[in-house]
């Protein structure tokens, strides 16, 4: 026994998806977290709530609306068609977009917390030493928020690995394109192939445990608040 070829394909696809999604999330979440940590704008609460929505919504609800939006008649779908890239549902990149939205709060919050925790002082210090705002951001804010980035990356990656509902709604079950580990396990169970399901499910448990154990046992705790 062991992993079948289809299992390995699902594992590879899942790792690729989680990596791409994590990188995109770090790029997108950093400016959002920075804005949220410094703004006194009255829309801050609304923006925070929108970003936090995936924490509480059933994945199917999120998947449903994303499917409509990215479908041929949805606004995103019309845009992607106009750009000549077709529609996103049931493609790898459709999964990437959905996963980015789905995991956004898990990445924004640790970074935002780290940026809020450093306070104004390091920024004022940098200014008195002749550093402009971009200089300060890259050479003071980012290094000081590093623990937040580590937490954010780990949470974003593992959360994307574990997603199921959104994938089913938006990606379906296409081998090599959208059939990720969680869907593959579901297929094995549906086919009463429990032994095969055990291999994948057990690997997921071990991997997730190892990563979280690493995260929690660091000297300075990195997790949310």
């Amino acid at each position, binding site marked *: 026994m062991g992993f079948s070829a289809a299992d390995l394909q699902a594992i590879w696809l899942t790792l690729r998806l989680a990596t791409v999604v994590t990188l995109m999330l770090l790029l997108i979440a950093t400016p959002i977290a920075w804005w949220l940590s410094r703004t006194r704008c009255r829309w801050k609460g609304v923006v925070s709530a929108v970003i936090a929505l995936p924490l509480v919504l059933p994945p199917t609800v999120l998947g449903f609306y994303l499917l409509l939006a990215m479908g041929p008649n949805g606004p995103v779908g019309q845009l992607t068609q106009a750009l000549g890239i077709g529609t996103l549902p049931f493609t790898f990149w459709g999964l990437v977009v959905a996963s980015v939205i789905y995991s956004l709060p898990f990445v924004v919050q640790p970074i935002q917390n780290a940026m809020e925790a450093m306070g104004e002082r390091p920024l004022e210090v940098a200014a008195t030493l002749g550093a402009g705002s971009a200089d300060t951001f890259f050479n*003071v804010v980012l290094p000081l928020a590093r623990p937040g980035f580590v937490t954010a990356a780990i949470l974003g990656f593992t959360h994307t690995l574990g997603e199921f509902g959104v994938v089913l709604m938006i990606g379906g079950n296409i081998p090599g394109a959208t059939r990720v580990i969680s869907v593959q396990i579901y297929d094995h169970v549906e086919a009463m192939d429990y032994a095969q399901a055990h291999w994948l499910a057990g690997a997921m448990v071990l991997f997730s445990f190892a990563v979280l154990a690493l995260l929690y046992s660091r000297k300075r705790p990195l997790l949310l608040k």
Partner: protein
Amino acid sequence: MSKSILSARFQLDRPGFRLDVDLQLPCRGVIALFGHSGSGKTSLLRCIAGLETPRRGKLSLNGETWQDDNHFVPTHKRRLGYVFQEASLLPHLSARGNLNFAARRAAEVVTEAEHHRIVELLGIGPMLERPPAQLSGGERQRVAIGRALISKPRLLLMDEPLASLDQARKQEILPYLETLKTELDVPIIYVSHSPDEVARLADTLVAMEDGKIVASGPLTETLTRLDFPIKLGEEVGSVVEATVAERDAQWQLTKVTFDGGELWLRDSGHAIGRRVRVRVLARDVSLSLHQHNDTSIVNSLPAVVEEISTEQHPGMALVKLKLGNTPLVARLTHRSAHHLALAPGKPIWAQIKSVAIIQ
């Protein structure tokens, strides 16, 4: 150095507090912003640094405008150094990393020799490789001062740099600050609520209360104003600039001369010819109509009464004297003042019980 003028006018509103100042000062030596906590010293300093954006403000140094109705030069372009009250080293960098952070962003190239000189001046060579978390409070503050100086600022702002340190650490840093004053040609604005620090360091005194400037001028004259608005209690006194003239090895005494006489005090190892600053507290000065030789008091100097006023306690009087051009303040009871028939212009002998070199 050319004569530089600092001109500042700010109105800043904060909940429960209002800063309203208009200040014109020759910007050289050490300018002390002195007052009780909550008097607005730090707010004024932050306005000068550009860290606060006051409702209305005008600020210029040497005729170069940093702020007016249409312009606001951001902090990082003002070429100033700022030492915060509590240690503010960037925690992700070593002591050396903090110095380099400043040096790399300096408007002019910082040479190896200049770098070395700052490190030597503050005695921070042995701790350069350590992260801030492994430095003591005093060491951190010395590195922070070095970091503020290394970029050759045109103005150094210090916000109670000693306030977060215990007495021993204060004594560790004060000599470095005195060295800075004499070694470097950078004007310093120094915020403090400690009369002792002000007496030791300041050349110019700006006293603040409730967000307003209540007195300002050269240290000696301002400190001895009998209407000096901030109540100093036991710390009322004067500061005398003097020169070491003679050292008596047999009795372990030093003679200093100043414009108005000479004083004998405990020998403190200062070389002859050295400029020193001497502090005379009002409570240590008593007055007499005649010169006495049958007293243990060593220093008895002829003076002229200039002004008499009532101290905080109604029974106590403060008497301002002139010894040559040097002002001195004596504290005595109104009864004594009455018995001696003190009045402006009256010649008198000032007996100084105790006097100390503070710098």
